[in-house]
């Protein structure tokens, strides 16, 4: 029955898209026409790719944690700490110069990932060692990050918001970047986009082709089966949660250094719920890393379209438009509500229980 619903939904969505494109082409000045021209513009595409970075990488990290049985709802917090710590590190080392022959932006990325992994380790210890409620502990990680970002920013920059640091330069691959469309999308783009694309493939490979990937799945579905097969469930879960820290760290730091060039720590920070959108993304993708990458394009695309609309000067309230990606998450969740969580997700596992 749910299959039927999703088929019908997909059909309706496809039909709407066709109507939109036809109307848009026939009447370029109409609403659909403007939307179509925004959707078709290269700026929107490149922006989509860049905005997808934190969502896609956080989602891939979240897949590993949740597949292993640890629901990491603190991923939003990991994005925040990696984002601002990468900016702070770059600032301290000196933006624009190099250390040990490596650009300080890259050192900032390394620091951001390390800090994110540190927080993931803390979360893992709390959940695995001390059997904390994973959801509550995840919320705690998020709230700590929400306090820590402006706290540190105030000490370092004297304001909750960091000073502007400049971003990664796009890396252009000769020859390949000349390919139409694919060229400017995939071969003339900043490094964090390459990281995202590589991360999605690596995540897929790790999960589906290596024995570690099999252990992660078994640990989330039936930890006892894994335990009796002689694999230490705790180690697998530690590794999976730390991995989620690595991916989220790349996402947060890559977003801050490659897209923002600064980090606002006030309110919901510059991350603004992207970690939670990442969770919705991997649920939508049914825990498939490549699917999560594509799903992140949906949310990032909505985001960049919204920016495009604002730039086009349409007199629609920007605040309302800004809610579109969030509202979309809700709609998506209702339709994918039946995504089956791993059997043992959220439960701690103790060897030797009978």
């Amino acid at each position: 029955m749910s299959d039927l619903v999703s088929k019908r939904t997909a059909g309706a969505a496809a039909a709407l898209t066709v109507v939109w494109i036809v109307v848009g082409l026939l009447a370029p000045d109409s609403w659909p026409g403007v939307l179509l021209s925004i959707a078709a513009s290269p700026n929107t595409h490149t922006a989509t790719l860049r905005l997808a970075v934190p969502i896609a990488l956080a989602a891939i990290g979240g897949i590993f944690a949740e597949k292993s049985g640890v629901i990491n709802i603190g991923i939003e917090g990991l994005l925040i700490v990696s984002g601002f710590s990468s900016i702070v590190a770059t600032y301290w080392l000196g933006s624009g110069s190099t250390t040990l022959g490596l650009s300080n932006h890259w050192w900032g990325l390394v620091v951001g990932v390390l800090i994110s992994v540190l927080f993931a380790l803390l979360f893992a210890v709390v959940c695995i060692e001390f059997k904390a409620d994973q959801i509550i502990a995840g919320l705690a990680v998020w709230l700590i990050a929400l306090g820590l970002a402006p706290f540190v920013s105030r000490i370092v920059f004297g304001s909750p918001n960091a000073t502007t640091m400049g971003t990664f330069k796009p890396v252009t691959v000769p020859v390949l970047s000349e390919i139409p469309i694919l060229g400017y999308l995939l071969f003339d783009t900043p490094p964090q986009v390459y990281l995202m694309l590589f991360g999605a493939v690596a995540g897929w490979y790790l999960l589906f082709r290596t024995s570690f990937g099999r252990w992660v799945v078994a640990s989330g579905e039936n930890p006892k089966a894994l335990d009796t097969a002689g694999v230490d469930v705790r180690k697998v879960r530690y590794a999976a949660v730390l991995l989620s820290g690595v991916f989220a760290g790349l996402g947060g730091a890559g977003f801050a250094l490659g897209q923002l060039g600064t980090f606002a720590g006030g309110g919901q920070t510059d991350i603004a719920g992207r970690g939670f959108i990442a969770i919705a993304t991997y649920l939508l993708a049914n825990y498939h890393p490549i699917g999560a990458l594509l799903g992140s394009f949906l949310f990032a695309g909505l985001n960049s379209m919204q920016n495009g609309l604002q730039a086009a000067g349409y007199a629609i309230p920007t605040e309302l438009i800004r809610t579109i990606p969030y509202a979309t998450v809700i709609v998506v969740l209702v339709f994918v509500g039946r995504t089956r969580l791993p059997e043992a997700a959220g439960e701690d596992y103790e060897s030797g229980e009978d």
Partner: protein
Amino acid sequence: MRDRLAEVLDRLVGASALERVLISVAALFAAVLVGGVLVFVSGGFATCRTGLDLAGWTFCYNPMQVYYELFLGALGHPLEGGWQLTNFGLATTLQRTTLLIFAGLSVAVAFRAGLLNIGTQGQLVVGGLATAVTVVYAAAIVPGGFIGTVVLIPLGVFAGAVVGGFYGAIPGVLKAYGDANEVITTIMLNFVATGVTATILSWQFQDPNSNNPQTRPVPEYAEIPNLPLIGFSGRMDFSLLALAFAVALMIGIAWLFARTSFGYELRTSGLQPEAAAYGGVDERRMTVASMTLSGALGGIGGAFWVLMVHGRWLENVPSLGFDGIAVSVLAGNSPVGVGAAAFLFGVLQSGSRSIGTGTDVPPELVGILSGLIILFVAMPEFFRMLGLRFRPAGTSQPARADGGEGGDVDE
């Protein structure tokens, strides 16, 4: 001596209610400790003229001073001269306590029903706007003075509760009938609430006399009145009446849980949904009902924020709803515990102002502390292990009189 201690610890571990209180207190201390270390270390990265010099490294911040400002500043520095009971610091503390009781109750009701409502913030935002708009418009047709107070305040609170309740019902319905995870939907609805209220404000209700995004003020007689003689002065934005109402609501919720069929069903659903279904509880209806009640409590929080603190709705709503999560978690989701936890967080929030004025430490420290408290409360096992280390080795675990789990040993 060690035996006595072990005995005491044993008894404490046995008593679960007492254990919860102990864990909460221990979590508080642990958070303060970690926060202190954080303050001290971060002082090493700040710049200042005078500080503690250690091995050529200057540490600017003194954690003791920070906590002195935090805890005593919140009470108006009672150890310093010229202290009065009705001081500004204490008024701010109690004002926050009042608001946090509503927010904490909102979260606790949902948690007890097994639902993680992270959306109290959004429910409070929309509820508050509904209150401000309702009162501003109703003031035009209701006579002023005492009658206005008696009519407008209940009306405003009612409007906040209804709209907040409706906004809370949305994730409830999505969960019950669409199986959408309420943690994610409520967080998303917080963002949606911010956007939608801002839009509604600029569309219709913006105060024409201000550049700030805010509504027009409610008439003065529609603000929560102060008690004469024993009350705090009007400029302190706190009313004992409001606190009394919050405490009454708290007792009401405790009564609801303990004594009513609805409360019984709600608690059963939260602990063991399968058993609730077996006992004749309609799971979906319970999900929607408890989320609605939770949202209504959040909306009431918004109403009091409008009617007691600012007299109008501002776009920049403080994060009371998120702090409500910390309050409820620290209170073990018990309504009476919410009162105590709300006071503690009231102290933290009020004290953050004194930190801002009395020290160079960023007041955002308080946000970190709340997060740490939640983290520590979430891991009771940590404190149990700590407690066990103080017990002499070889203390056997208590055995059951009839030999364990009955017939389930070999199943």
